């Protein structure tokens, strides 16, 4: 057995595997409003991230997403408190002074705040928070940037544009800071609008200069040298890929929303995927580029993906056999435990051991 098939051999897991795993968990989260599986999902992402993240700069992004999730919950609760009033439930927790608003607005400002209303808002927010945590985990374990290395050849141009955009965003923020400081140095402070205009010019000029510089650097390093120049083939490829991704999106939406007509779900997904594969295959043939040190796709990747997909599959199965346990009869009821779904989520915990450990950086050891 080659070493990269062993789950104990230290190496970085393919970022695609992490993303599929996380998307599986996110799909599971999207199908339930029951806090038990939702909290479990958040716990699973937390545990796996702590077990398998590296010391890369993006590994800290899980904390960022987690904080974002908490903010989402807080915002939901605040708005519920301010806006809902006693429209749901009878258990009044406390009362806020009510501000009269015409009925035609359809909202109520202030008034009684009920436990039921708050709990409902909390559960809805929890679902969003769980999905945030899944994406945060994917980003921390295999950054979006790393993933972009594996964009199929047909989508290479789009991939490289994304990479550059990801680099430019922080640089632009740095530029903005520098220019704002410089504006303060001049002492001019005549209204915000004029300052904004003054900020925009040097920033835009800086960004433009940098993109021209980057284009020159890419050109002198052979970018686009090996692609064939047949525009017809390229157009066909782009058309296929775009149609394919659209189809896939619609299909996934149909599958996850669960409300749409039946043709929108699985069939659309399959057609979309087929078109996409066709496009990628036709585009892949014409490129002369090679790839440096691709991460292997081996047994651990398959196991990680399988565990994520298992979580989604068992959740969907639960929807089919007993959807009642996935929603709450009333928001104050003790949430039931959906066994199948929880089993799936527990399976998604396995990557904490199934994914190979990261090697310790040799430079650190030497020093």
């Amino acid at each position, binding site marked *: 057995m080659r070493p990269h098939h062993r789950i104990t051999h230290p190496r970085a897991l393919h970022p695609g595997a992490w993303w599929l795993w996380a998307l599986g968990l996110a799909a599971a989260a999207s199908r339930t409003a029951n806090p038990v599986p939702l909290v479990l999902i958040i716990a699973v992402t937390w545990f796996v991230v702590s077990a398998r993240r590296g010391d*890369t700069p993006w590994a800290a992004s899980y904390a960022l997403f987690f904080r974002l999730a908490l903010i989402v919950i807080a915002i939901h609760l605040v708005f519920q408190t301010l806006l809902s009033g006693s429209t749901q439930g009878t258990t009044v927790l406390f009362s806020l002074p009510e501000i009269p608003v015409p009925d035609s607005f359809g909202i109520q400002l202030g008034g009684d705040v009920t436990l039921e209303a708050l709990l409902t808002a909390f559960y809805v927010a929890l679902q969003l928070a769980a999905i945030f945590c899944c994406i945060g985990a994917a980003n921390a374990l295999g950054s979006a940037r790393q993933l972009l290395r594996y964009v199929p050849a047909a989508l290479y141009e789009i991939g490289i544009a994304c990479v550059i955009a990801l*680099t430019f965003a922080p640089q632009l923020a740095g530029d903005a800071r520098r220019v704002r400081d410089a504006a303060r*140095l001049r002492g001019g402070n005549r209204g915000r609008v004029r300052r904004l205009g003054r900020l925009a010019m040097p920033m835009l000029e800086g960004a433009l200069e940098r993109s021209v510089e980057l284009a020159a650097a890419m*050109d002198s390093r052979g970018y686009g040298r090996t692609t064939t120049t047949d525009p017809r083939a390229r157009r066909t490829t782009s058309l296929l890929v775009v149609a394919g991704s659209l189809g896939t999106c619609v299909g996934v939406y149909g599958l996850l929303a669960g409300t749409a007509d039946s043709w929108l779900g699985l069939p659309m997904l399959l057609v979309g995927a087929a078109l996409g594969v066709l496009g990628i295959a036709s585009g892949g043939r014409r490129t002369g580029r090679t790839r440096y040190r691709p991460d292997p796709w081996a047994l651990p990747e398959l196991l990680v993906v399988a565990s994520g997909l298992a979580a989604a599959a068992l959740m969907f199965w639960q929807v089919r056999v007993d959807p009642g346990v996935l929603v709450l009869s009333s928001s104050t009821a003790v949430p039931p435990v959906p066994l199948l779904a929880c089993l799936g989520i527990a399976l998604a915990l396995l990557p904490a051991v199934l994914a190979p450990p990261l090697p310790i950086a040799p430079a650190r050891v030497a020093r």
Partner: protein
Amino acid sequence: MIVFDRVSVTYAGAASPVLSEVDLTIPEGEMCLVMGRTGSGKSTLLRAINGLVPHFSGGTLRGTVQVDGRKTSSHRPRDLADVVGFVGQDPLSGFVTDNVEDELAYAMESLGVAPSVMRKRVEETLDLLGLADLRGRPLAQLSGGQQQRVAIGSVLTTHPRVLVLDEPTSALDPLAAEDVLATMQRLVHDLGLTVVLAEHRLERVVQFVDRIVHVPGDGSPVVDGPPATMLAGTPIAPPVVELGRAAGWDPLPLTVRDARRRSVALRAELAVVPPPEHGPRVSGEVLATTRNLVLGYPRRPVLEDVSLTVSAGEVVALMGRNGAGKSTLLRGLVGLHRPQSGTIDSPRAGLVPQVPADLLYAASVRSECEMADRDADAPAGTTRALMDRLTDGIDPDTHPRDLSEGQKLTLALAIVLAQRPALLLLDEPTRGLDYTAKQNLVAILHDLVADGHGVVLATHDVELVAEVATRVVVLADGEVVADGAAREVVVSSPAFAPQVAKIMAPQPWLTARDVASALAASRR
């Protein structure tokens, strides 16, 4: 290896050509320096080598440029990627990926090199440039010198025959610059690479190069030749050459080592002459004080416990590595950065930022000056008058972006001076300045000090420090590690000693001009 045959370049919309009738042959294995004023066409010349001019820049190129037998007229830059490696001025803006290894592999991926070959070449390049420890690091976290080495490595992996670099050391501190230049010399010696580079700081590179190409930029022909003869004839020269001229040595020495061996008699002659003082003994009114200053970000202090006093009539040079906290201190003095603890008292300070162009927004120099008057609540015409006093020949209808680096700096300086600061702060003022612009800056600074201003400048430019500084403060790791008269601090430091000090050691001479005037006095 590189042949220019009657090459003229005219950019679209320009009245006169940037380069006219350039005939130039650079043989294989040479390290060749292109020098000239800013805006003289150095960059155009460099970019013509790999076809960026005119394929990328537009404009018209007459004549032929041939590299390793390939004509740029029929080869686009990407078709020359395996022959010419081109490294632009700012390495960070040329990076496509985000970590060292991927960046090194990028060009090879584009060319479709087989994976096994790629793997081998990346490892070789990591070793060649001493980057092995940094292989997985994000590019944004590297220091300036490391970034520059990665940029060089990223074009070396395609095994080019020619390496073209545009001002590779202008943003680097002296040691990082030496590091990069030593790397390049190794490439020339070990791989037989032909290197062509542009650089303003001649003192850093002259000792390494085999040939100098001078682009005068005023329409007179481009000339080239061996360094000693080229430098004898041009007004711009590194201090070691100026010293050679002052002492009347022939041929002129190019390296500190050469000059040191020749200077035995000179040192004996000057042994009894005390070097002139730089700056006043008595200091004037106190303009800025910091006490136990901690500056930076939560849990990441950049400056720790800095106590400094700056008085009128002083020119204080802040020196130290990239990231030592020089810029942060300046920003603190001008009030852009609130102290974490300690106090800053500098009520009348004005800062010219590292990129002077950040201060310029208007569509013409004229309206820029008018705006500055309003911003500073100064009477109309103040900035314009200041600018005219600092330099002449800036056309008020030019767009500020079209000014040369030196002119931009002067305009920014005038804008800051319009606010009547008593203490003037300059962050890396000589970045991108040619010798003439630098001489102009030195004169301006002397004038300002004579007017009773205080000046603090953060710089890597040891020769500038030797010329103007009365006091040098060395920062390392956020702390002041040396603070004293320029001569005492600079002469004993291996990194910050100017060339003349290295040649004349142990006698504390700082500039060739000092030596020249002392010689004139003693021989009279």
